[in-house]
């Protein structure tokens, strides 16, 4: 099975006051790899200037852009076509220079607490013997423990907090899964990307899922939110130990006070995203 997916992802910031200075680190460029081939891709800016582009320690394609001082809105648009294959979740061998143990280290968003400890109770032996099966059963446990419910968490919510609350979005479920896998001594990481959803061409946000490492098989994806291993509906864009490492956009922005204090304009972030099957073989614009 293979698909051609056309993706168009625009992020717009509108600020109450003009920008004083700002730098944004973008991980918005998918790379050809084990289960995908990039046919065409472009990232365009309005209100921002590209500074440098490089490959980070995870192998992600990163661009650093400076926001234009004085501008009051910025748009970053990533769009293109990616050909995907169903590899039943397999994401390839471990590559790059980060040692596997790096994916066992805690991060702020995946710090393990009593909730994670309880979640993995009784799985330690199984994890040592059959890590793949353990990761599958972990998917079920996380799904039960953290119900999909948007609006209660944000991009800075740690796994343990979402677990205690018992609800969250795909990112929270992935974080809980990652923290739990690490608690079982299985290297795990976060993937940020896109997902083709039937009947929902227009989406509010990109997708996020987890990968666990199994000796002999390599990295394997687990999408807790959809209870599947990623297939040809998934486009991997960036990886990291947690969302923060792999996030599409991170950075620092400072703005000046609005010229008109009385105008009750607030800073606003708008994301438009469409993921669809490409109409034909021609690259989507």
């Amino acid at each position, binding site marked *: 099975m293979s698909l051609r997916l056309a993706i168009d992802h625009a992020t717009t910031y509108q600020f109450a006051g003009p920008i004083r200075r700002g730098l944004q680190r973008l991980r918005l460029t998918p790379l050809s790899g084990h289960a995908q081939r990039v046919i065409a891709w472009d990232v365009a800016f309005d209100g921002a200037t590209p*500074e*440098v582009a490089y490959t980070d*320690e995870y192998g992600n394609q990163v661009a*650093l852009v400076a926001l234009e001082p004085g501008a009051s809105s910025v748009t970053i648009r990533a769009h293109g076509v990616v050909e995907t294959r169903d590899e039943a979740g397999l994401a390839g061998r471990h590559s790059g220079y*980060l040692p596997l143990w790096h994916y066992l280290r805690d991060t702020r968003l995946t710090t393990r607490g009593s909730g994670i400890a309880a979640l993995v109770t009784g799985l330690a032996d199984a994890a040592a013997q059959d890590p793949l099966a353990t990761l599958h059963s972990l998917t079920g446990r996380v799904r039960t423990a953290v119900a999909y419910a948007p609006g209660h968490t944000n991009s800075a919510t740690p796994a343990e907090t979402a677990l205690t609350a018992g609800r969250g979005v795909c990112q929270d479920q992935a974080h809980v899964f990652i923290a739990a896998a690490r608690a079982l001594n299985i290297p795990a990481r976060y993937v940020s990307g896109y997902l083709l959803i039937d009947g929902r061409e227009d989406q509010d946000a990109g997708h996020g899922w987890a990968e666990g490492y199994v000796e002999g098989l390599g990295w394997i994806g687990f999408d807790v939110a959809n209870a599947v291993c990623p297939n040809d509906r998934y486009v991997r864009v960036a990886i990291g130990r947690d969302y923060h490492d792999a996030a599409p956009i991170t*950075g620092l922005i400072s703005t000046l006070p609005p010229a008109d204090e009385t105008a009750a304009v607030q800073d606003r972030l708008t994301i438009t995203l469409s993921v669809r099957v490409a109409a034909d073989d021609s690259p989507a614009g």
Partner: protein
Amino acid sequence: MGSGSGELMTTPSLPCFDEMREPDGTVRPAYAGYRAWLDAQAPGLLKRKGLEAEAFFRRTGITFNVYGATDGEERLIPFDPVPRIITAGQWRKLSRGIEQRVRALNAFLHDLYHRQEIVRAGRLPERLLQGNLAWLPQMAGFTPPGGVYTHIVGIDLVRTGEDEFLVLEDNARTPSGVSYMLENRETMMAMFPELFTRVRVREVSDYPRRLARSLAACAPPAFTGDKPVVAVLTPGIYNSAYFEHAFLADQMGAELVEGSDLKVTGGRVAMRTTRGWQPVDVIYRRVDDDYLDPLTFNPDSALGVAGIMDVYRAGGITIANAPGTGIADDKAIYSFMPEIVEFYTGEPPILPNVPTWRCSEPDALAYVLDNLAELVVKEVHGSGGYGMLIGPTSSRKEIAAFAAKLRARPDNYIAQPTLSLSTVPIFTRAGLAPRHVDLRPFVLVSPNGIDITPGGLTRVALKKGSLVVNSSQGGGTKDSWVLDD
């Protein structure tokens, strides 16, 4: 002066090596020229000069002194007017050992941030890296311009015999103290000009020029033009080493910048000048890794430059020393340095380590617990002497309490024997008297090679019998001479 250890102890009863005199009182060859000069001087000269020296140093040292006069951030470090002398032959051997070690440190760092062959080969336990925050993932897979990680290294040495120099500590992050080395020599030459015509001593004063040249040789791929722009990044005037930062920038003819002077623009890190933004090619930073880039490390840091790590990875700037070099001077890693040197150079180390027991190893732990009263026990990640035990000066009760801590977390400690550190005479009211010393040579690394300034900074314990050379605990400094052939 930084993270200097200087906390080695000796049992005072041990006979120790005096660098000036043999046990029978004969003056050793290194000091023959100096002694001959001294004998030819009128009696009481050294005493008079000693007093003069104090006044002189107060005057010239005004720059040390007054920088801290407000809040005592930086004090005048006592200076002793008797030189510490090393012969050309001793220095040759030392240099070879230092060069070998520094070469190994750089190869080691490159390996740690790439395939970690040394771990794969089973020569370094993975656990030393695994939980270690000094190893920065952001450096993985990246090779700094010119392949240089530690542009400036300070190797702390102690001496126990004629040809016995041991490495006490490697300083691979931002070793400080070089300004004292330079000022000490200036002071000596001003005080005893005729002495320098009698005894030929190798020059140190061109260190800033060599540093500038060495840094310029590490320009990043984005550099175009004929002369790389070098800047010294300081945390600011309230930093305890600000004097040294200003001194080096001044001597190198480089700009002394703070984080607020820099930003990422035009794909480079540039400094705000009165003519506009000017790209910096090489930044000699005296700011810790964690404060270097709020976008990458500590987000609250105002001392660094947002995005500098991105520009670095993209080849737009050279950071000296490279971020993440701290993993190489970690105390837990230190005990593996002999293996590390051998692994990367294929030769046995020329300079030995101070023997070290890794308490994480059961046999070593057992030995250390049995011999606590004779050992110095240090925390692996600690610095500055907290949580350490100096066996010979501790009470039975203190030793028992420490043994409990050690048993609870053995992998947090290493232990070393008390050594009989060498002595060098200092000038006292009663005349010359021996005191314990260490030595920190300064090493520059560039693609053109390894450049060791002859001598370095000698730190001396001014109190009789004391082995603590730290400036914060009654230590002073001396001019360090390497004799010309």
